[in-house]
């Protein structure tokens, strides 16, 4: 299901050989495509891999509230099959919004813990259980060892792990540069919403930065937020200006 053309088939062959040697991922990796050709083309396998850990965080103020990242995660979880386990310690998620991103309230089971360690323990337990569509964990710190545990649990069961990183303070968010065992790492920042011919707020738009992707390249996309089924849509790339004035203005790319 590789949709993107490789410069040569040799690299693909080599990758397969390496995958065989690694053993753990001998099973053919399955992916959940975004349904947007440009994004899927950038991701190895043509989508977000099942049985892997993916990290999401907000940008700017979103590092603390993680509001856009939560919706992005909900949209991805909505497109999987089965129940979703959502582990959290700060219960400020507003369920109607999650439902508007396509995730029906009957499908989500919330696990609320007082301590960060308990959230991680529930996260890992959910991943190891197998049979869930996806497991979401709202976590602050994700050290290498912890992320490797989560990644291994996900690999074993084939469940997708979605780590939603949110920090207590915006300054703590530089922690997001630390390496972890996750397969992809995303940053979702809010952009001014779609222009409407009349006054009002249009479809929200996000800047989705693929900051890290194992065996893939980094990329950034300007997307329209999840619709009622959890699907994103691509907008033409943003025209960045050097000055702050033009940042945040919307130009149709020529």
């Amino acid at each position, binding site marked *: 299901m590789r949709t993107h053309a490789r410069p040569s088939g040799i690299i693909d062959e080599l990758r397969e050989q390496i995958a065989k040697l690694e053993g753990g991922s001998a099973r053919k990796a399955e992916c959940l495509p975004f349904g947007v050709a440009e994004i899927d083309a950038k991701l190895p396998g043509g989508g977000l891999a099942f049985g892997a850990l993916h990290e999401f965080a907000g940008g*700017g*103020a979103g590092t603390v*509230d*993680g*509001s*856009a*990242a*939560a*919706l*992005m995660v*909900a949209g991805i979880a909505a497109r999987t*099959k*089965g*129940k979703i*386990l959502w582990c959290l310690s700060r219960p*400020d*998620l*507003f*369920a*109607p*919004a*999650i*439902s*508007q991103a396509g995730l*029906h*309230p*009957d499908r*989500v*089971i*919330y*696990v*609320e*813990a007082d301590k960060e360690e*308990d959230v991680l*323990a*529930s996260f890992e*337990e*959910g991943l190891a*259980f*197998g*049979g*869930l569509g996806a497991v979401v964990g709202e976590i602050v710190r994700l050290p290498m060892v912890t992320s490797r545990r989560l990644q291994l649990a996900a690999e074993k069961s084939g469940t997708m792990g979605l780590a939603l990183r949110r920090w207590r303070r915006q300054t703590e968010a530089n922690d997001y540069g630390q390496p972890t065992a996750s397969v992809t790492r995303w940053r979702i920042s*809010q*952009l*001014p*919403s779609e222009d409407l011919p009349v*006054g*009002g*707020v*249009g479809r*929200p*738009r*996000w800047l989705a930065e693929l900051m890290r992707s194992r065996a893939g390249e980094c990329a950034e996309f300007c997307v329209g*937020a999840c619709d*009622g089924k959890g699907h994103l849509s691509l907008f033409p790339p943003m025209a960045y200006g050097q000055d702050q004035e033009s940042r*945040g203005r919307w130009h149709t790319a020529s």
Partner: protein
Amino acid sequence: MVVISRSGSKRTVCAADDAARKLGLRVGMPASKAQALVADLAMYDADPVGDLAALDKMALWMLRQYSPVVAMDGADGLVLDTEGADHLQGGEELMLSGMVNRLRGVGVTARAAVADTWGAAHAIARLTSAEWTVVPVAGTAKAVLGLPIVCLRLAPETINGLRVLGIDTVGQLSAMPRAPLTLRFGPEVGRRLDQLFGRVAEPIDPIRSLEIVGVSRPFSEPIGAAETIAKYVGRLVVQLCAELETRGLGVRRADLIVHRVDNTIQAVRAGLAKPVRDDKRLTRLLTDRIEKIDPGFGIEKLSLVAVWAEPLEEKQQSSSLIEETVVDVTPLVDVLGNRGQRIYRIAPVSSDVPERSFRRVGPMSKETGIDWPTNWPRPSRLFAKPEEIEVMNVLPDSPPRTMTWRGKRRRIVRGDGPERVFGEWWLRDAELHAVRDYYVVEDEGGERFWVYRAGDGVDTTTGSHRWFIHGIFG
């Protein structure tokens, strides 16, 4: 109303309600005298067998509800070992007051006390006027010294004999030299005193009824290692499941009771969301918390009891070729729930007020298929408490131009609204005229907020006209 008991041909009052007590009737009074004092007295014959049966029923209910170790305490009381179980009810105070209130709800006037020892709790519950008492740890001596000696669970003849000697309170009795007392009344007095002060252990032998399925395993040589405990728990679970299978039951709540060589009891309780008879799952739940067991000098007996069992229906598995298999997530829910995590689903409530539009339901409650209306955008984060903001706006019906929140001033570029939410006067009188106008606003950076004004902007009876931020959109 009084209750009359018979012994031979003698009829005496053995219980009287508040109204009867106000009229001067006392327990122990001859029935004929009571009748003479009050003309139209309602008299009932005592039914000791029925009382005992009712107490037994209550004990079984307590066993399910409060603690794995419950026993009868005389003919008129129950004793519970609530150590390690009170936090589930919100602490000792809340547990006791809740217990008394729930019993009052079914027409039982109860008194309750928590103390370090069975003897002290027995005495304080019966002889203090408060409905419930919590004696602080190591405060037993202070609490019981002033109490009369009737609370000591001694035979009536012994009590009378002590009274003749001029001993009325526990304090006086404990100050007496022990040897002459034992010579005169036997070892019972000293033993009860020691039990009261916790110098001698007094294990509670938990009640069991015929319906309760339980298995136990004594050890000739005390065990202590975690692996050994796990091994025997596994065997007990297999036995228990076989027992349950013959009765067609599944476990909802299982207690592992650990008897240590020093005559103390510990319990591990595992709850399940649905009746289960799967030995692997049960073993996992019980061994998950094996580190909570303190084996001390060794464990001489393990018993496993299905305190709460429900009929379990066998279901035919649908073929995976035809239908998609639906994965049952109850095992996961049980594991997480027994670790003390709050686990729930969020279900819609038909209310326009955002903070009332959802409620938590059990994770395995019935799937309703109901969803929230999707015609209005909703923020992904909702503040538990709306935060006040300062705004500048021109017209009462337009979104604000600027807002200052947490010290940061933002210029609003786009806005949508108002979405008017009316107060729910059927819930609270104060909400009769209350109105909130919600706006979606977006600042220059593209951050979107859910703000509202308390009131409609014109009429001050509808609200204070102050502005609040209630959520953040994604």
